[in-house]
């Protein structure tokens, strides 16, 4: 059994020591630090990216909030403007209507007065004509002059009755 050849032990052990120590030095000085470095950098990069992503998400959320606030403000402002405009237009219309009403009233009053005056005039004319007619009729039929003031009273009472 070759494993029991004691004479072969020394060369195996010597070369085992040489090669294993060499490999240990190569691993611990060169290979392992490089792998550790790459792994660490990847970890760093990953956590950095994650951090950045979450920061961007926060930013986006904030932007959305700002947008919504602006929208709400604009909406309420638009509402206010609409209300104001409506009120203004209504007030204007009211004012115009009032002015028109006043003018109309004045005109009506004036016309009424004129009509009143015309009526009065006509009325007074009717009285004179009635008196004159009565006088003329009296003169023609009775042959006597009827007193004007008595005729006037009679006409007045007749007109009062008819009115």
């Amino acid at each position, binding site marked *: 059994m070759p*494993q029991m050849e004691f004479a072969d032990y020394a060369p195996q052990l*010597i*070369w*085992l020591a040489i090669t294993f120590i060499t490999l240990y030095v*190569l*691993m611990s000085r060169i*290979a*392992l630090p490089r*792998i550790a470095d*790459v792994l660490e950098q990847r970890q760093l990069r990953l956590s950095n990216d994650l951090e950045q992503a979450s920061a961007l998400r926060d930013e986006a959320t904030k932007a959305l909030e700002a947008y919504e606030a602006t929208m709400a403000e604009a909406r309420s402002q638009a509402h206010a403007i609409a209300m104001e405009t409506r009120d203004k237009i209504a007030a204007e219309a009211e004012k115009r209507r009032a002015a028109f009403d006043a003018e109309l009233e004045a005109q009506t009053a004036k016309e009424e007065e004129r009509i009143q005056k015309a009526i009065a005039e006509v009325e007074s004319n009717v009285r004179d004509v009635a008196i004159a007619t009565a006088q003329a009729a009296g003169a023609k039929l009775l042959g006597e002059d009827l007193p004007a003031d008595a005729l006037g009273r009679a006409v007045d009472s007749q007109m009062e009755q008819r009115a």
Partner: protein
Amino acid sequence: MAAGESPLEQFAIKRLVEINIGGVDASFTNSAAMMVIVVVLVTLFLTLSMRGNAMVPTRWQSIAELSYELIAKTVRDGVGLEGRKYFPFVFTLFMFILFCNLLGLIPYSFTVTSHIVVTFAFAAFIFIGVTILGLVRHGAKFFSLFLPEGVPIALAPLLVPIEIISYLSRPISLSVRLAANMMAGHTIIKVFAGFVVALGLFGIAPFVFLILLYALETMIAFLQAYVFAVLTCLYLNDSIHLHH
């Protein structure tokens, strides 16, 4: 059976270059040649694959990172944060044994780890190192390792010798497990390879078996290297934390 056909012939140490230093035989043997090849291959594998230092690893870089993380996790889980110092040693140990096991599976090559003297050298080094580490770290308290906590003092005369024996047998079990696995596997492969040739056309049956056996041996090569690393971590943990 002729000498060349013995299944054990593959384990023979052959002196390639005779070297003698002060009466000590330091000849460069086939075993030493394999060790040198292992050192070169492991170094090339871990440096060339990491040459790109890519953020997204290539296939080879992935394997290198995977082996790094496997051992890093084993050390971290087995020993904890104090194990960081010993990580390069455990990693070197794992890689050395793994490559010795795997390269030994190549026909006509030589399996360094099939020699008990090699595995025992590893085991003894770990055993002595771990014991010194425990004594330096804990002083006399280190011997509490031999009396598990919470055990009635009456049982001590029985338990302490058992614990001491189990502690002392660690290097033996550690080294024999690896060397025996390697030796047995390679011997069986050699025997069945002999059948393939001897049976001629009917050799197809042992040939199929040989293929399956070869796959199994490849797995064992990896597994035994890993077991060696795990047990090293376990012993380190005992010395650092004294049984938790």
